């Protein structure tokens, strides 16, 4: 049976990849997906930690992470669409100025 440590290392790696995506990609939707990858890393991590203790608290936390992800999907995509409507592009660079 895989030990919790393996999951933690995997979670960290996923999180790192997601973070790179968020920082380095310009497309708003890819940035968005990258944050979701970070959440996946968190989820893996939580489940990994869950194995170390009695109970299923880690999994419950994981469910709440899912709630956050759902919220993020709803609101985030709404905002992406709004931004896209304003500038006609998904490039995050065009939002570098402070005024709309």
């Amino acid at each position: 049976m895989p030990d919790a440590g393996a999951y933690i290392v995997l979670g960290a790696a996923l999180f790192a990849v997601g973070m790179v995506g968020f920082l380095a990609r310009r497309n708003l939707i890819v940035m968005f997906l990258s944050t979701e990858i970070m959440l996946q890393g968190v989820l893996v991590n939580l489940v990994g930690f869950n194995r170390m203790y009695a109970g299923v608290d880690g999994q419950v936390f994981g469910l709440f992470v899912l709630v956050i992800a759902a919220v993020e999907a709803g609101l985030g995509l709404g905002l992406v669409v709004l931004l896209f409507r304003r500038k006609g592009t998904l490039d995050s660079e065009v939002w570098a100025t402070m005024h709309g």
Partner: protein
Amino acid sequence: MTGGLVYLLYVLFAVGGIALYLAMPRTQGAHAKAGLVIGGGAVAGLLALCAQVYMAPHGSNIFYYIFAGVALLAAGRVVTHPNPTYSAVYFALVVLSVAVLLVMQRAEFLAVALVIIYAGAILVTYAFVIMLAQQSGGGSSADQRAREPMLAIIASFVVMGTIAGRVSDLRELPNSPVEVQATADVMDVPLADTPVKDAGNTLSVGRTMFNQYVVVVQLAGLLLLVAMVGAIAVSRKRIPADEHGPPPPPPGEIGRTVPPF
């Protein structure tokens, strides 16, 4: 993780970072293949390290390696693929792999919830990628250029590599009660000879959630409600009525009115 192995972990993270850097989209063509090869090597090394350090006493499970590898490589593709639609497809792969990994950790309920919720969420993402990408007429130049990939990779991998090396040093921790109890091999889990009374995961997750975390559940519901209202408010199209089509006729005027369906 002890001694030199930690440095091996750091080295693997660094190699993964290099692979990611190579695969990042660039205007003068990315070295995606090279990145994939090196990244595959890094992932394999990482998994081998895990096998060496964590799995050895318990014996290994091939599914962990497969799906962890798939998840990592797919995640790498999500952030490096110049086409956002492919990013979304790869992300689906990440989600499914992670779901399998969760199942292996006896978190079936969480795994299925993950698939259901992300199926919905990613579906929307797909739809938007498709609509917006089609509207903007093919690949945007923004997708061809990564933004300071080197700095981003260094920052992220240093952070996560360090934390992973530090936190995953779990050998000293005692074996948990859950682990002792859950002796069934992962292969047995989906099969029907699990005792019915050990309804297990779903039941215990539900119990914990609605006993211990009931307030948090309420808060999560509230959060979802707020997000729904916010999303509707944000994405509502504000078009003056007189610009697009005639205004709706006032009630009582002649017009076809029928019950809603």
